[in-house]
């Protein structure tokens, strides 16, 4: 296994190096935006991370009166990881990206990096993860930055309440990636009023500027597949065949790194197909959010109203239906109507505008404690949005030349920068 990783690493390092010259020694090896997003960072390039850490899982009862339907019998509360130091140390909250749990591999890598640097760490699932929708979302309708921020803040207070007797904390910090990055900025702003934590520093990693724009860009990737998004099943099956044939005709000893790397090396999937796969993965993810929200609200969106699903009922057709719905379907048919009812007179444009960092522009420009780290080729940002982040944050913006969306998050330089940002004094790093 070690040899294999080494081999992969060497191969990656020998990739076309033409674009490297201008990068001043940044060696993250995957140039393509989509490829980087899918492949992420090979373990060998993550740097030294502790294999064993002092950690326990928190199960938070954030909303004690919450009743849970039988189909979610396993949901006992909000699942967070808590890594702790034996001495007084700063604490950092980490918010996962869209759909991800507090145990996803990216957030666990970040947790290890912070733990190694001497932090207490608490990871939180994304408000769009089903566990959060079921156990911590007041409205049970995820996707609104204002409400999700309230929910996140309550969850963080609940987590802190649970651990404060066991650890000594010098100060509080906050970091999130992808959607969690955008949310981190909103949580920081809310904290200025509530003052439960008085965050010392806050870092957004690969955030979206406008949620609606970013999702439009991701959904757009499905338009390029044959027949469009409505034929995602045909596309899925075709890609699976390609994948299977590649395995059958090669001499692989198992579905392992070696095999996955060869898919990349031999360019098994075209650019359109790779983009389509990213969008499909996002849709499958979104399906979990739509389904859990619908069950929790009893909204009759994909599950018949008044149907009580049992723990052993088949829900496969709901999976197929939910994964065929776009974010726009969710937004227009479910999300917007809910907020329209709540805030009469609310227009779609106003709702879309509120789901953006630009809506808290003044706060961000006046807050030296907030920083951003992203990539030139992160496809969830339009060119003008990247420019906006650079302008807004100036020296507090770190923009890597490549890495796609989160592909380089676990790369050693990125982890070092991430930890370094928090290790410098408050204000400008």
């Amino acid at each position: 296994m070690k040899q294999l990783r080494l081999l992969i690493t060497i191969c990656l390092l020998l990739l076309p190096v033409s674009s490297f010259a201008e990068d001043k020694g940044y060696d993250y090896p995957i140039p393509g935006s989509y490829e980087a997003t899918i492949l992420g960072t090979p373990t060998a390039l993550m740097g030294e991370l502790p294999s064993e850490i002092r950690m326990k899982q928190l199960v938070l009862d954030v909303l004690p009166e919450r009743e849970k339907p039988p189909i979610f019998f396993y949901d006992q509360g909000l699942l967070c990881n808590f890594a702790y130091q034996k001495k007084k140390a700063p604490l950092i909250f980490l918010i996962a990206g869209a759909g991800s749990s507090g145990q996803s591999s990216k957030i666990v890598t970040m947790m290890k990096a912070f733990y190694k640097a001497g932090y207490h760490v608490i990871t939180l699932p994304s408000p769009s993860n089903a566990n959060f929708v079921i156990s911590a979302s007041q409205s049970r309708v995820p996707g609104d930055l204002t409400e999700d921020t309230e929910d996140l803040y309550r969850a963080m207070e609940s987590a802190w309440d649970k651990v404060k007797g066991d650890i000594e904390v010098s100060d509080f910090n906050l970091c999130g990636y992808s959607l969690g990055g955008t949310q981190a900025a909103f949580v920081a702003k809310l904290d200025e009023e509530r003052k439960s934590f008085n965050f010392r520093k806050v870092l957004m990693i690969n955030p979206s500027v406008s949620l609606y724009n970013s999702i439009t860009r991701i959904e757009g990737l499905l338009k390029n597949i044959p027949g469009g998004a409505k034929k995602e099943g045909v596309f899925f099956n075709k890609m699976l065949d390609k994948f299977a044939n590649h395995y059958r005709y090669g001499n692989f000893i198992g579905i392992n790194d070696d095999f996955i790397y060869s898919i990349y090396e031999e360019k098994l999937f075209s650019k359109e197909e790779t983009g389509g796969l990213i969008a499909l993965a996002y849709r499958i993810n979104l399906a979990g959010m739509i389904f859990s929200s619908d069950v929790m609200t009893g909204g009759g969106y994909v599950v018949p109203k008044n149907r009580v699903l049992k723990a052993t009922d088949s829900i496969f057709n709901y999976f197929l239906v939910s994964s065929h719905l776009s974010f726009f379907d969710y937004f227009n048919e479910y999300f917007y109507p809910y907020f329209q009812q709540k805030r009469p007179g609310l227009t779609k444009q106003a709702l879309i505008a509120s789901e953006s960092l630009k809506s808290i522009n003044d706060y961000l420009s006046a807050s030296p404690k907030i920083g951003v780290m992203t990539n030139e080729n992160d496809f969830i940002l339009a060119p003008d949005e990247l420019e906006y982040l650079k302008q807004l944050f100036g020296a507090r913006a770190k923009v890597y030349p490549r890495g796609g969306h989160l592909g380089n998050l676990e790369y050693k330089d990125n982890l070092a920068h991430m930890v370094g940002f928090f290790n410098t004094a408050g204000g400008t790093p």
Partner: protein
Amino acid sequence: MTRCNVIRISLATCFLSLALLSGGCAITTSATLSEVPPMHTIEEFKDQRFAEVYDPWEGFNRSIYRFNYYFDSYVFLPVVQGYEEITPVFVQDRVSGFYNNLSEIRNLSNSLFQLKGKESLTTLGRFVTNSTIGIGGLFDPATRFGLDRHVQDFGKTLGYWGAGSGPYLVLPLFGPSSVRDTSGLAVDTGITYGIYTAAAPFSGTGHSFEISTGVTSLEAVDMRHRQSFRYFESGYPFEYYMVRFFYHQKRELESARNPDAPSE
């Protein structure tokens, strides 16, 4: 003639019980508030189904999946945690190595069943190297010598010779499987047990039963220790289907025969 009748009767029983089952469902649902059809249903999508696996016993499988979750929470994981706390990582890795090496017997017998000459030799080489230089498998010098591990089992052997996977099956403790792979597991266990009985390594101790029970229990603990999967931890409501799909796909690919491979 009588045989035909028996088949007819059993078919009739099957249909009858199916009818009763579906009738039963209709009765229970009508007892509660009446259902309203949702805004989106499967009928509106003219697309291929995807990520689906033949799973006629899904209700049963989901209940075993749930059983495994509870077993993990209350028995398996606490034991594994205790094991991880009292033993250093170095010891844990040696234990894993020991069982890995024992399972080379299963790998070897199945490479042979699949008439894979080169692979059998590699596996035999691994077993001999690691049993001797590697001190009974505690260390793995064979990999460093370029002898790659080929994981084989009788389920794969059946697949290799063309047997379909059959319905998906979730086994207590073992987790995802299929009818084919479950038969394979039984055969592999039988072979291992046969060899073990013939070799009788602890027969001289007078505590043969206790020792072999200990060895088997530790194997189960080691197996769970190495598997990072936690039931329902993803929070994803369709986790059961994702696990089912990935298990099935991985097994299909890994047991299939390379159509271009030169026969050995």
